[in-house]
């Protein structure tokens, strides 16, 4: 203990030193930024006053010297601005350093040296005036990996030049809040379980937390992997998949600093916007900002330029809330079929067949002459390079026709002028009237041409489903689902009403990408996909075309599906579709979120659940409570929520099967307790008590969870088992189920 006091003194002095250094740097950075801002205003002023700024002339031949002088002003201005942005970033990270400079330290002795060096590890690095004086290392730096991967004893880390070996004789972890060292302790093994347990038993904050202090060895391997182009992670509920995905994004950014990877080159595809908000806190805290985060429907909208698309949540809602088994079966089959390999093959055949049967080439006339023959054009397109997208081939055709038109136009306008001068009373402004006539006839002409050079994907897709005979001909040799007749009829009916369901939007997006291409950012270098089990083969086909050169990190859990059953073959499929050179599948089966008891209870809903290990943390056994009337059910829920609030749980989730159920329950409760309804994407933080439908709750967590209403009517099928698994595993500390009526046979 005496030793501890002595060490504490040393550590406190060191902390003070670091903080005062950071403060010094902060104040000098603040002064520089003020100066920079003044500089920027000054250069703007100079540019305005001292240059001739006749911008329209800058492009002309004579204006070249103006362009040069303009450039002389613009260059320092843009330099100043980027310097200012850099300083703003620095200030932001220094402010964080002052609050909590580091969370760990190792003593590391390089093999060719005699003394141990103290390596402090923090969320961002702190360097001295000269860049080689490093006081605190970024958690993503190579040497920091030693902390995550080794206990005391021999250790090594990878650097670009090879391996650095050495020895560790101390691993120490700190809890520093607002510049105060609360406590520290040493460990010789992995990140100390006690430390982790203490962190885990804390209540959730409104947003996801960073886990840099507690990254485990297997997690660290995923985060720091640079070998594989395709990294797939199958992780049990609560195993930290999402955290890992985000930390990996942060790590890749850090790695990319040398290879010019900017944050805009990373895109995270998340299940819903609620989730997007939830994770938004993590990345800036990790040190990176503005990593693009989208939901898949955003990509659809960008590809199709259509905002009227059924969202996945709407689809799930109508699927889950339907009591008609036959109808549900058809909806599921339709979704499954239209996103399958089989349908993809049909669509590919359809694209092949477009120029032959569905594009109406027409003879094009200009100035009384035929300038493009329909048979020749068709032959040209059919014989064209198949590796070029059809839409682009057609566009080239359009250009080549227009080139002929442009050549002929002068003589055409002359003819028109002569005609007007001779035959009308506009002889004085014949030129203008000739131009008007030319504009009119050119408008007609271009519309004629575009009838076959522009593909109307929606119209073509409608035709595919309108003509059953044709559909079956295309599908020859392909296995179709039993209820294909009904699927075709329903789709045709939907499309006639211009109702674009989720699965049709998916197919349309695929068609569009495969014919017209898409100008979604081709520079994306890293794609992180969360909840991958929600997607189908066609999703990945689209991603492959959108981000052809990107590396992928794919996180999922085959047990957390909603409308389908998945197994590990999902990852084989993904691997086959994306066809990357190096890929790996990693399984994380340790759950950090739930208590032992909750995990044990939840895993009975899935097969192979026994493999999931819990990070031993004790709690209460989940209870199942019966109510004898619906009003008693409401009372029980209120009582439980009040108890949770009294216990100090910050977030309480009342999970219902469908959105409809959630709304009904909300109406019953809203006047009696303070509660919020999560519907669509309307909530920005998760502090308080919420009612939420299961499919929206995926990926989120609550201190306490109440499931309502767990009766036979609501939960009775195989798919419902998955829903129960998802709902139960949202709970950190407390889980209780309530029902009215006959108890669900699944419980």
């Amino acid at each position, binding site marked *: 203990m005496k030793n501890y006091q002595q060490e504490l003194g040393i550590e406190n002095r060191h902390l003070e030193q670091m903080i005062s250094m950071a403060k010094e740097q902060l104040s000098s950075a603040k002064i520089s930024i003020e100066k920079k801002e003044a500089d920027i205003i000054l250069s703007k002023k100079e540019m305005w006053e001292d240059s001739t700024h006749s911008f329209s002339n800058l492009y002309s031949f004579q204006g070249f010297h103006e362009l040069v002088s303009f450039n002389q002003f613009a260059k320092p201005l843009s330099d100043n601005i980027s310097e200012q942005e850099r300083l703003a970033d620095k200030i932001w990270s220094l402010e964080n350093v002052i609050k909590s400079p580091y969370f760990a330290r190792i003593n590391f002795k390089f093999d060719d040296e005699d003394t141990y060096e103290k390596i402090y590890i923090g969320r961002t690095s702190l360097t001295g005036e000269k860049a080689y004086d490093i006081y605190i290392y970024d958690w993503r730096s190579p040497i920091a990996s030693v902390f995550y991967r080794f206990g005391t004893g021999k250790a090594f880390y990878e650097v670009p030049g090879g391996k650095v070996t050495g020895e560790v004789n101390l691993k120490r972890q700190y809890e520093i809040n607002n510049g105060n060292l609360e406590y520290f302790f040493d460990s010789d093994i992995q990140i100390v379980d006690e430390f982790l347990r203490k962190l885990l038993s804390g209540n959730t904050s409104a947003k996801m937390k960073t886990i840099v202090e507690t990254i485990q060895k297997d997690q660290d391997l995923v985060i720091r992997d640079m070998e594989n182009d395709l990294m797939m992670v199958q992780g049990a509920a609560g195993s930290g998949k999402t955290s890992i995905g985000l930390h990996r994004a942060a790590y890749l950014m850090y790695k990319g600093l040398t290879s010019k990877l900017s944050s805009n080159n990373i895109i995270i595809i998340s299940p819903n916007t609620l989730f997007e908000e939830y994770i938004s806190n993590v990345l800036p805290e990790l040190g990176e900002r503005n990593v693009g985060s989208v939901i898949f429907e955003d990509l659809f909208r960008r590809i199709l330029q259509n905002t009227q698309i059924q969202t996945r949540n709407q689809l799930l809602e109508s699927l889950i809330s339907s009591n008609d088994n036959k109808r549900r079966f058809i909806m599921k089959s339709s979704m499954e079929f239209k996103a399958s390999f089989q349908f993809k093959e049909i669509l590919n055949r359809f694209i092949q067949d477009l120029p032959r049967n569905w594009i109406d080439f027409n003879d094009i006339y200009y100035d009384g002459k035929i300038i493009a023959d329909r048979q020749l054009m068709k032959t040209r397109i059919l014989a064209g390079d198949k590796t070029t997208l059809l839409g682009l081939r057609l566009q080239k055709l359009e250009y080549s026709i227009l080139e002929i038109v442009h050549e002929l136009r002068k003589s055409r306008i002359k003819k028109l002028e002569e005609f007007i001068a001779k035959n009308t009373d506009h002889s004085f402004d014949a030129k203008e009237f000739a*131009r008007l006539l030319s504009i009119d006839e050119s408008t007609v002409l271009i519309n004629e041409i575009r009838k076959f050079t522009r593909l109307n994907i929606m119209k073509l897709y409608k035709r595919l489903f309108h003509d059953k005979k044709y559909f079956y001909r295309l599908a020859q040799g392909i296995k179709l689902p039993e209820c294909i007749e009904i699927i075709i009829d329903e789709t045709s009916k939907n499309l006639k009403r211009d109702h674009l369901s989720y699965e049709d939007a998916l197919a349309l997006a695929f068609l569009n990408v495969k014919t017209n291409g898409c100008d979604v950012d081709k520079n994306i270098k890293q794609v992180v996909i969360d909840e991958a089990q929600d997607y189908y083969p066609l999703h990945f086909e689209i991603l492959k075309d959108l981000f052809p050169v990107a590396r992928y990190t794919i996180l999922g859990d085959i047990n957390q599906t909603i409308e389908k059953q998945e197994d590990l073959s999902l990852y084989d499929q993904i691997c086959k579709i994306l066809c990357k050179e190096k890929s790996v599948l990693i399984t994380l089966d340790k759950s950090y979120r739930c208590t032992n008891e909750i995990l044990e209870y939840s895993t009975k809903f899935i097969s192979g659940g026994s493999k999931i290990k819990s990070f031993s943390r004790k709690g209460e056994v989940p209870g199942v409570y019966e109510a004898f009337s619906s009003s008693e059910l409401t009372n029980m829920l209120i009582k439980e929520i009040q108890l949770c609030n009294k216990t100090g749980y910050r977030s309480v989730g009342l999970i219902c099967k469908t959105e409809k159920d959630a709304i009904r329950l909300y109406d019953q409760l809203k006047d009696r307790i303070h509660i919020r309804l999560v519907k669509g994407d309307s909530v920005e933080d998760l502090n308080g008590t919420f009612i939420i439908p299961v499919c929206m709750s995926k990926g989120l967590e609550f201190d306490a969870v109440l499931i309502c209403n767990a009766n036979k009517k609501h939960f009775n099928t195989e798919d419902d088992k998955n829903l129960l698994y998802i709902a139960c595993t949202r709970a950190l500390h407390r889980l209780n189920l309530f029902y009215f009526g006959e108890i669900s046979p699944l419980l």
Partner: protein
Amino acid sequence: MVSESVAKILADIIEADYEEVNPETELTNDNGIERIDVAKLMIECEKKYKITIFDEDVHTFKCVGDIAKYIEEILSEDAKSAVSSDEEREAWYYK
């Protein structure tokens, strides 16, 4: 900048005050703009900027700003090819 010039040219053609025409002004009868005025505007813009406006593109112009954007695109493409062409740059130096 281009949009202001185009607006001015149009105002001259339809004999309106300069303040009455702006980039948002739609090319419709309601604003006193006849189809023949559009034709005239095309001719004048071509003269001023020494460019060609293709007649099949004219139907896409809904307002003054659309025309300005079209012209700016042509100009910037010309500028790009002008800068990248070494011959031309040399021609400027040794004039």
